[in-house]
């Protein structure tokens, strides 16, 4: 099992979800985050006071999938999230030791 974490542009969320749905991925967690990588922030001005805002709003998706599907899923995800500009985000893949379905104690990939 692998965990896929993707940090993407907020406005790409809908496209990514649709792309993943068409290849049969329907479980994920999504949250609004703030952060930055190489992308520069922006300037905001309140009554003449300038603020450099470096932490930019992003959306983070997280899903745990069977190892065999990682390649296919990350490709679809990246394709849907890509606009070709700086700030498109990143995908991280990591190993998962165990998965347990709380309802009936199922374990392993069947619990996904």
């Amino acid at each position: 099992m692998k965990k896929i974490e993707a940090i993407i542009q907020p406005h790409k969320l809908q496209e990514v979800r649709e792309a993943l749905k068409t290849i049969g991925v329907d479980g994920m967690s999504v949250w609004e985050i703030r952060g930055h990588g190489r992308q520069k922030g922006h300037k905001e001005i309140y009554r003449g006071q300038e603020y450099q805002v470096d932490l930019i709003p992003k959306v983070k998706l997280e899903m745990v999938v069977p190892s065999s599907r990682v390649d296919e899923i990350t490709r679809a995800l990246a394709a849907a999230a890509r606009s070709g500009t700086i700030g498109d985000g990143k995908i991280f893949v990591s190993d998962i030791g165990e998965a347990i379905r709380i309802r009936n104690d199922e374990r392993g990939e069947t619990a996904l």
Partner: protein
Amino acid sequence: MNPPRMRSLKLLAFGLLTSVAAFAQAASEAAKGTDLAKSIDDLKKAVASAQMSGDNAWMLTSAALVLMMTAPGLALFYGGLVRRKNVLGTMMHSFILMALVSVIWALVGYSLAFGEGSAFLGDLRYAFLYGVGAEPNPDYAGTIPQQTYMIYQLMFAIITPALISGAFAERIKFTGMLLFSTLWLFVVYLPMAHMVWGKGGFFNGTLGGKFPAWDFAGGTVVHITSGVSALICALYLGKREGYPKEPMRPHSVVLSVIGAGLLWVGWFGFNGGSAVSAGSLATSAFVATHLATASATLGWMVMEWMIAGKPSVLGAISGAVAGLVAITPASGFVKPMPAMIIGVAAGVVCYLMVSKVKQKFGYDDALDAFGVHGIGGTLGAILTGVFATREVNDLRMGKAMGLIDGDANQVVNQLIAVAFSWALAIVGTIVILKIVDFITGVRASKQDESEGLDLSMHGEEGYNFEA
């Protein structure tokens, strides 16, 4: 024709018939040589009672509108501008004054402001609201119960100290704030209100003032006193921890927009109600207020657009408040076009004040109570002397009211009143801050400040994630 209108027409017809009948009856009585004088007397009473109903309805409405300016108006306006950890504390600074000032006002405040007393302070004739009932007080308002006048004036006493809270936001101790506001009311507000509006007051324009100054709804009494005191508070308390290095962006301009909208609407009661009647003067003040505010909004927006590059929403609403402030003293004395000039001037000057001058001097007037109220109020008070005209408000029985109207001297009187209110606010506030600092302390501890006033002072949070 819809049914309600039909009904009102029927009512009108009925009213006409009965009054004609009454008149006919009165006439026949007169013909019989019976009590004509009594009929006329009854008629006079009926007319007076009708006028009182009309005026009283508007004045009670105005009182409610002015209360609405403090909360939710100012509470939202200021609340949105602070960081989220201080939103409740900031709203409380406005809300609690609706309670605290009301009690003080009923006990002695109204009397010290509006009792005859000396030229500088009222006496205790109305203490505990003694004698303040259904009878009008002809010195102030001959057509409404004095109790209405009292409650209307109370709403001004509530919002004035609340305005100051913009300067010490995010770093004042709650006990210190309560004590400060109480003392400030006695030392600055009540004397100033008496001098400008009270019978025999030093600057009173109609009731025997030595230097009659025009202040229709509180340019000196409300905005200069609060704005200048705000500057003193900002200087005395010092900057917020981390200012200006740490980002202190408003946590929700959305709240501030709602607040500014409520302030704009409430201000019709503030200025329109200051006519203390429901006649054409109230209309004139209402119109002047609205047009000045509209012009000030545009003035600020255009300035900011040209200088900073973008027309911010915070800029637009700040411009509106600046316009409302500046037109306050002038609203019952000027025609619509001068009102718009006052508005534009306020928008431009206050924008430069908060975005350029403040940065230059580096004081931390957190929410710009001085830049908007102190400066806008001063500008408005002076321009009142320039644009006041007898065509709007003929207080001098046909003689000129202001500079353009033909009396240059009035500008001098306005300047004297302005200088005096600045001086009283500066000296009074310094003394009070020293006293409060000695008794309870004024500034929150470093730890309380960094934790946020919501949690450290009130044990609550404005936005609870789990709830």
